[in-house]
């Protein structure tokens, strides 16, 4: 149940929270999404036999790019139009679940892959795309291989990896680092030393939007992967009993609580939400020195941070090793969102399915769309797209993201998206308590072991 998508960048103001709440309350009624046929055809009735529907997330700049792709597709295919409906992030999550449960879902389902996709598959709601990829090998070939993990359930591909790849990045404020006279950390010990130094200099060490919970989770993901490699979480993912009992998990949880106890995170972190972008603001205004956050935050920091990004004050790197001598995980590993995922409803008519597949083959991630994604400061999950990056600061960042994503030995999908919604909720709940110091690592482990495989 992770609200993290690239559209987060569009939550520029606190006012954005209003539709979140309103939509949640309207979950049992209609939440008033905006709907349109991209061609002025006069509603879905005019769209013809191959008419397909497509629901996706609103929020700029992604919304405009999605709309533009549909517009181009509809202009080129007068026989098979796609009608779109746009939803605000949290509203969409509830709406799509309810709609699929009631058999009222769209032809093309926008999603996050992983555990959520698996719940659609288990309910027989989405089309198996394995054979489509066999018929269109080029489509498989041109995408990052790491993007397919979250689209695959029981060895079959149920979603088209699309849009952008957004790993989690270790950001630091160069201005603050220079002022305090320190270097970026190379190990967990370095991090703990930096925490003390920043605290005594009157700067919060790390920014964190703790109320959103998945923000805290990124710390656990990196720590566990660095300490023990990807195998431990893989066992949880496969539903093996007591997988959380691995000693590395306790080590990871203890380290997190050590960091909280050492005032590693900014005061009030547990009431800061990532939706409001307040966690970014404390970072780019220099109140906090470092931040572990998604690649999608770059655009917001650039737009809102004054000369913070353009002046070269933003430092970024992959999460450092915990202890280079004993780490079992590969230091090139990363976590985050390997992509966004388009699925086709199994309940749609054959003609609508054909239209959707045509859209997948001809328009999704074509050159025009890729250019638009790059222009918005994101990396489309297409091999070789780095040749189109602009020179200069943005290009450097895009290249960094491209290399982290393409070279990662293991690109782990965010835990809460990889796991089933039931497990994810327990996970997030216990992570919040962990950061609040209201559960011990041992309680955490037993709480999580109790829901494995559910």
């Amino acid at each position: 149940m992770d609200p993290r998508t690239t559209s987060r960048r569009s939550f520029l103001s606190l006012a954005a929270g209003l539709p979140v709440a309103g939509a949640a309350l309207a979950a049992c009624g209609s939440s008033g999404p905006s709907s349109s046929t991209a061609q002025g055809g006069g509603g879905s009735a005019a769209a013809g036999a191959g008419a397909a529907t497509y629901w996706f997330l609103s929020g700029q700049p992604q919304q405009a790019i999605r709309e533009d792709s549909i517009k181009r597709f509809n202009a080129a295919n007068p026989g098979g139009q796609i009608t779109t409906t746009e939803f605000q992030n949290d509203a969409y999550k509830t709406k799509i679940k309810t709609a699929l449960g009631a058999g009222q879902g769209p032809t093309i389902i926008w999603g996050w892959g992983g555990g959520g996709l698996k719940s659609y598959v288990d309910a027989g709601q989405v089309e198996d795309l394995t054979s489509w990829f066999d018929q269109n090998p080029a489509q498989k070939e041109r995408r990052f291989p790491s993007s397919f993990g979250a689209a695959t359930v029981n060895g079959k591909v149920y979603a088209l990896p699309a849009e952008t790849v957004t790993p989690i990045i270790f950001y630091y404020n160069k201005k603050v680092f220079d002022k305090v006279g320190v270097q970026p950390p190379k190990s967990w010990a370095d991090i703990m030393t930096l925490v003390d130094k920043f605290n005594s200099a009157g700067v919060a060490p790390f920014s964190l939007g703790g109320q959103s919970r998945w923000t805290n989770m990124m710390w656990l993901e990196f720590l566990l992967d660095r300490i023990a490699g990807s195998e431990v979480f893989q066992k949880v993912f496969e539903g093996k009993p007591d997988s959380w009992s691995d000693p590395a998990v306790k080590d990871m949880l203890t380290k997190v609580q050590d960091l909280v106890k050492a005032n590693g995170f900014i005061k009030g972190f547990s009431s800061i939400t990532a939706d409001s972008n307040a966690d970014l603001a404390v970072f780019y205004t220099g109140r906090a020195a470092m931040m572990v956050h998604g690649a999608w935050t770059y655009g917001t920091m650039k737009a809102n941070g004054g000369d913070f990004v353009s002046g070269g004050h933003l430092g970024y790197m992959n999460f450092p090793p915990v202890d280079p001598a004993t780490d079992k995980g590969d230091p090139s590993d990363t976590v985050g969102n390997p992509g966004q995922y388009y699925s086709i409803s199994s309940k749609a008519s054959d003609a609508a399915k054909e239209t959707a597949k045509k859209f997948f083959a001809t328009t999704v991630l074509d050159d025009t769309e890729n250019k638009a994604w790059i222009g918005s400061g994101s990396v489309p999950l297409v091999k070789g797209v780095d040749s189109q990056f602009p020179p200069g600061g943005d290009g450097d960042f895009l290249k960094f993201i491209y290399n982290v994503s393409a070279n990662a030995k293991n690109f782990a999908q965010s835990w809460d998206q990889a796991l089933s919604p039931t497990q994810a909720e327990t996970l997030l709940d216990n992570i919040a308590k962990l950061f609040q110091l209201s559960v011990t690592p041992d309680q955490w482990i037993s709480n999580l072991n109790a829901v494995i495989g559910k």
Partner: protein
Amino acid sequence: MTAVAPPVVTGARAAIPQGAGRSGPVAWMAIPALVLFGAFGILPLLGVLFLSFTQWDGIGAIHPAGLTSWRAELSDPGLLHALWVTFKIMFFSWLVQTPLSILIGVFLAGHQRYREFLAALFFIPLLLSSAAIAIAYKALLDPNFGLGAGLGFPLLSQDWLGDTTLAFGVLIFIVSWQFIPFHSLIYQGAVRQIPASLYEAAQLDGAGRIRQFFSITMPQLKYTIITSSTLMVVGSLTFFDLIFVLTAGGPADATRNLALDMYITGFQGNQMGTANAIAVILVLVGLALALLFRRLGGDASESQLEGA
């Protein structure tokens, strides 16, 4: 949300003065209301009851599962915690709101021009939606960019919503701020109903203002207090929007009440069976409270009005 509506309705009705609807021959006039109540109150309630005996992820097929959801829910320490939080919110918001509402209500009952003007001002918080209130307070209380930081007043820069105790206090404060105007309005009306002759007589007997307040105003407000308390208590059972936006139940689960627990379990955790079990518990608690307050109301034939 439909699941939690019925007890509110029942509660509110139960508390509305008795006697008026018992005239007999016009019973058929209740039919439209009964039909609506049946279709939108009772029927969904039965659906909730049915779903609580199933396992359902909200997407796939509904599997009958007997008592599985109930067993899971009743053995979950989260339920006790959510109940505890719910009752704590109920108790403290009642404790803060009732005396203040009575005092403001009595004050506003005077017919002076400035009091009428203030009455209009006091009413404003009630016009705002809970979501808007939550967002506004969240921004004001932000420890890094909020009121404290803006005014350079460190005392206001507490971790208001990130500390377990403070967050709970803030919640009670905001709830009170939002609903005291409503209850004041009820008390204002009730105080104006008290016959002036009672006060005149008391004055002749030499009773002072405070004596008058405790010996005349308070006893005369008995039923109003019960009505207002029922609304407060049963209403606080279903607090959702404000908490959802303000703290999302946090920090950790410090403000996660039953309604929020139900939403999170059902719509975020995909466990509709368990969520419906929580909903049933919520209904039962609501009904029990409404009945309790009805009992407290005592014999309905006792009239408060002049001449009775």
